[in-house]
């Protein structure tokens, strides 16, 4: 579904990704772990098409299509979703109105009419129940004054609404207390299917107890230095990341 080949990316002439190779098939959950500054968030941004980063080498393919010339909004229309570590506040635009715009833009891109208001309301109700989101919350301005946990839950709510093929969750566990983490994780698990894929970007193993990955990759200095099954996450939790430095020094 998502094929990343020898991906190099830089910002302000500073190379951050130095040759990433990763293949993600439908139905799989991949976790990408690594110390701060290893390039995890950059990888997430580059997959979603952030133009702040320049892809200098390599390619990203979604269902066989090269994404090189594809804008972030078109990637979204094709089924890429990024849950942000720091979602942006949009005063004056309610969560509901924002989702209406996002969904209808995506439908427009696929040559469909706007979703009828009734269907939209039904969809919003269903998905907000999935994430135990209060109705009042939906009429608040997007992310404005939201707590860290509310922001993250809202990100997953958006994911539920947009039903992406590939969802990248960037540090979705940070800033969540254990109850919120459970709700968010259970939401993600319910959205998981054999037709979509999830990439979890995380610093800690905690989230992976709730969303169990099929593969774990360790990112360091812009490269995947180790891949394995879910047990690798436990090993990392125990050993920390210091061993990486020694290993790369060798």
């Amino acid at each position: 579904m998502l094929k990343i080949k020898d991906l190099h990316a830089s910002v302000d002439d500073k190379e951050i990704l130095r040759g990433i190779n990763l293949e993600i098939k439908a139905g799989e959950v991949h976790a990408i772990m690594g110390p701060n500054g290893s390039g995890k968030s950059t990888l997430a941004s580059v997959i979603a098409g952030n133009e702040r980063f320049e892809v200098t080498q390599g390619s990203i393919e979604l269902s066989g299509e090269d994404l090189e010339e594809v804008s972030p909004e078109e990637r979204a229309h094709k089924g890429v979703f990024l849950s942000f570590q720091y979602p942006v506040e949009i005063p004056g635009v309610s969560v509901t109105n924002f989702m209406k715009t996002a969904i209808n833009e995506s439908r427009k891109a696929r040559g469909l009419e706007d979703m009828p208001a009734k269907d939209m309301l039904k969809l919003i109700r269903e998905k907000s129940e999935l994430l135990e989101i209060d109705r009042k919350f939906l009429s608040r301005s997007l992310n404005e004054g939201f707590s860290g946990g509310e922001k993250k839950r809202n990100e997953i709510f958006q994911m539920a609404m947009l039903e992406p093929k590939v969802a990248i969750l960037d540090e979705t566990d940070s800033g969540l207390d254990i109850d919120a983490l459970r709700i968010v994780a259970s939401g993600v698990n319910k959205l998981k299917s054999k037709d979509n894929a999830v990439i979890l970007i995380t610093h800690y193993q905690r989230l992976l107890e709730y969303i169990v990955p099929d593969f774990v990759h360790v990112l360091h200095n812009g490269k995947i230095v180790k891949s394995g099954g879910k047990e690798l996450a436990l090993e990392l939790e125990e050993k920390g990341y210091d061993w990486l430095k020694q290993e790369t020094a060798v």
Partner: protein
Amino acid sequence: MAFENNVDVEHPVHDVRMAAIKNFEEKGFPSKKEEAWKYTSLNSLQKIDFSIFPKEENALEYKDVKRYFIHEIDTYKIVFVDGIYSSYLSETTHDGVDICLMSAALTKPMYKQVIDVYFNKIASKDESLTLLNTAFSREGAYIYIPKNKMPKKPIEILHFSTGNEASLLLQPRNLIIVEENAEVQIIERHQSLTSNDILTNAVTEIFAAKSAIVDFYKIQNDNETASLIDNTYIDQKDKSLVKVHTFSFGGKLIRNNLNFYQNGEYIDSTMKGVTILGEKQHVDHHTLVHHIEPNCESHQDYKGIYGDSSTGVFNGKIIVDKIAQKTNAFQQNNNILISDKASINTKPQLEIFADDVKCSHGCTIGQLDEDALFYLQSRGIPKKEARALLMYAFANNVLSSVRIPELKTRINKLIAKKLGVNLGFDL
């Protein structure tokens, strides 16, 4: 200039007018050499041969101009067509409050006492454009709200110009008196319906007595051949609350001289503005708050979005007199430039003579936040719409204090139109 034929020597304010003419003749039009006019030139306007006293006005049908009214709600309406009162389009009242015409107030004996006390009392006696208006204005809105009263509905003041002259100078003069504990909501709009040149030089005097509440909304969305110089003077007494919102979305040149004089204690003065310009439009916001007495507050919040080759000015002057202790004066001016050719000159001007005051000011000039843009795009919202949403969010703080919901909806629609987007919902 031959005014004699058009000036009524028997008129009760004849002396005031003659003095203003004399004063104006000495001063002439302001030039860019004056600090207050450094960034706004009236040269191109002065080259136009404006008619000052229009002949016949053109008739307007309500259905043709309905969209310029806040027609979703019931309002009082004081409507002028080419500077002349249109009784056909207006809805005035004398039922407990006076919502009518300046020409009537200036000539009818029953208003004489009020006119003597208030007319031309707060308007500048040495600012030349105000003098010009004082000298030649013949018509405008007269609003008198007695003690403890509030009109049943908001008041709209509309000025239409139809192009009955090749170029027309309009000089409306409004007088608004809100007595103790009274309240009023006013929406004002100047709308040209012609491609002929229109210059409006308006003067509004507002008197807010003790505990009075005034909400004044100015909609400036005129066409590319219409210019506006708005001179508004506000006198506030103890515990009064006056808010002026200025929405500047269109017009060739707009100059807003908004002046607050706090003649009492525990006064709150609020000025808010949203400016969204494109093409070669120019807007100059000059605000003045004079804190004359202790324990008062002023709040200024102006947001500007400048595209194409548009230019903007914000000059916010705050004077705190020596005895005006415990003053809280806040001023904020944030701007986004969305084109390399657009520019903004922003300047706080603080003259503080008291020592126990809180004054803060901040101005920013920036571009749209790229990370925020990416966030919206990553949700499938195209760049153009994403930019519009961010600009809307940027201006939102100012909109949140608009107290007439239908007006707010209207402003939102104007913003969406100005930003060239249809977001699929009313902003």
